[in-house]
C-alpha cells in the first residue's frame, strides 16, 4: 500500500527532518508510527499526502509514484487517502452533515450520491442522531468521529490518522481507536501516528518508531522510549 524507499527531507538551510528512511506497508495493515516531537512523523505525513515532496528517494502510495506526481493529479491521490488530524479541521459554521457533505461536493459528487453516502458514514461513526448539530455542540470525541466520517467519503484504501487522540481523554481516545480498528477490519489500511504510549501498547500491532528523522525500530509489539 505504501512503499517508502530511501526518502530524505531537508528543510533549508540544513534541517534534516527525514534521513534516508525506507518503510513498506501492506494493504489492510494497521500500523502505528510513533516518535517524540520533532522525530519526523508529521513530515512523513505531509510527504504521503503530497503536501510536500521529498528531497530524495521515492514514495509509492497504492501503486502511484507520488514523488513524480504532477500538480494536476494531486487531488486524485488525495481522494485515495483519508486523513484525520488532532485538531479535527471541521468548519465551524457548517453542521456535521454539511461538513461531511462538503468533502463530497467540492469533488464534484452528484447531489443524489451525497444524500446516500453522508447518512451511511454518520451511521458508521455513530453520529446519525447528531447530523444537524454544529461542531461547537459536539464533544471532542464526536468531532473526531465526524472528521473520520469525512475522511471516509471517498472510500479510501488508506487512512492516515495524525495524532487523532491527542486532544482527547483516555476513554474517548479508546472509542476512536476502536472505530479505526473497525474500519481496518473491512480492509482499509490504517497509519496511526501518535506519541501516546498507552494507545500503542493497548493493541499488539506493528509499530514503526522514528527518532531524529530515522527509523529506530519496526516490529510488532510495544512502544518503548
Amino acid at each position, binding site marked *: 500500500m505504501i512503499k517508502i524507499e530511501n526518502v530524505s527531507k531537508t528543510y533549508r538551510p540544513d534541517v534534516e527532518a527525514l534521513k534516508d528512511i525506507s518503510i513498506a506497508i501492506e494493504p489492510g495493515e494497521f500500523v502505528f508510527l510513533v516518535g517524540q516531537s520533532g522525530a519526523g512523523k508529521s513530515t512523513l505525513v505531509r510527504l504521503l*499526502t503530497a*503536501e510536500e515532496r521529498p528531497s530524495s528517494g521515492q514514495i509509492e502510495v497504492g501503486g502511484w509514484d507520488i514523488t513524480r506526481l504532477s*500538480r*494536476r493529479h*494531486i*487531488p*486524485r*491521490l*488525495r*481522494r485515495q487517502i483519508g*486523513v484525520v488530524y488532532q485538531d479535527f*479541521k471541521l*468548519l465551524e459554521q457548517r453542521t456535521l452533515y454539511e461538513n461531511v457533505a*462538503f*468533502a463530497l*461536493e*467540492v*469533488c*464534484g459528487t*452528484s*447531489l443524489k450520491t451525497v444524500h446516500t453516502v453522508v447518512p451511511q458514514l454518520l451511521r458508521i461513526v455513530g453520529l446519525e442522531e447528531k447530523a444537524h448539530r454544529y461542531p461547537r455542540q459536539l464533544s471532542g470525541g464526536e468531532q473526531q468521529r465526524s472528521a473520520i466520517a*469525512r*475522511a471516509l*467519503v*471517498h472510500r479510501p484504501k488508506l487512512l492516515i490518522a495524525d495524532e487523532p487522540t491527542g486532544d482527547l481523554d483516555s476513554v474517548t481516545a479508546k472509542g476512536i481507536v476502536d472505530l479505526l480498528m473497525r474500519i481496518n477490519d473491512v480492509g482499509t489500511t490504517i497509519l496511526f501516528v501518535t506519541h501516546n504510549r498507552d494507545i500503542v501498547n493497548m493493541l499488539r500491532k506493528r509499530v514503526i518508531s522514528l527518532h531524529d528523522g530515522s527509523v529506530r525500530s519496526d516490529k510488532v509489539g510495544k512502544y518503548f522510549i
Partner: protein
Amino acid sequence: MFSNFYRVIKFALQNFFRNFWLSAVTIFIITLSFVTVNFFILANGFSDAVLTTIEQKANITIFFQVTAQESDVQAFKAEIENMPQIALLEYISKQDALERFKNSARVEGRTSIVDALDELEINPLQSSIIITARSIEDYPAILSAIEKSPYTSIIEEKTYRDRQSIITSIERLKGKIRDVGVSVMAFFAIIVALIIYNTIRITIYSRRKEFGIMKLVGASNWMIRMPLLLEGILYAVISLGITILILFPLLSFLQPYTTRYFDGLAFDVLGFFSDRFIVIFGYELAAAIGVNILASGLAIGRYLRV
C-alpha cells in the same frame, strides 16, 4: 458537470455574502471608478458634439458682380460643383436674392424698402453660391480651386466664415480631455486591480481553513480557484449595475440644465449613453472582468497553494 458549475456559483455567492462588508467596500470603489470613467466618456462625447456643431456652421459664400453674365456664373458653378470635397452647393440667383430680401423685409415690417425696390427697374442684388464642404479640412482646397478658376473676374467677394481658430482650440481641448480620460481610466484600472487583489488575498486568508480542507479531501484546483475568480467577476458585474442605476437618473436630472446652458447645441446627455449603451457598458464590463480575472488570478497564484 452541471452540479459542479452550480456549486462553483454557490461557493462564490456564499463567500460574497459572508464577507459582506469587504464585498461592499470593494464594490463601492469599483463603482466610483466606473462613474468617473463614464463622466470622462461623456466629456469626450460632449466635445465631439461641440466640434460637429461648429463645423456644420462653416461655409464659403461667393458673391458675383452685379454685372456678371448669368452664363459665366453657371459655367463657374459647373466647374466647381463636382469637386469631391463639396457636400452641398446652393446657387442663389439675382431674382432669388431679391425675393428673399423682400420677404425678410416684409417680415420685419420694412415695407418702404420693398416699395423702393419695386420702383427700381434694375435688380441691385447679387447672385451668390453657398458652399458647404464635407469636412472642415476641405475648405482650403475649395478656396484654392476657386482662386485658380478662369472666372475669378466675375467674383466680387467671397466670405469664408472661418471658424478654424475656434475649431483648433476645441480640438486641442478635446485632445486634452481624451488624454486625461485615458490616464484616468488607466489609473482607475490599477486601483481596481489592487482592490480586487487585496480582497481576494483577504478572502484566501480568512478562508484558509476551508481551502485547507478542500485540498485535504481532494477538491480539484478548478473547484478551489473558480469560485474566487467568479467572485471577482461578480464584483465587476454588480458595480457596473450600480453605476448604470446611478448614472441614468443623475443624467436625466442634469439633462434640462445642460440643454439650457448650452443653448443651441444639440447634445442629449441621456441619449448619448442610451444610444451607445451596449458599446460603452459592454466594453466597460469586458475591461472590468479582464482586470478582475487578472488581479484575482495573481492573488490566487501568489497566496493560494493548491
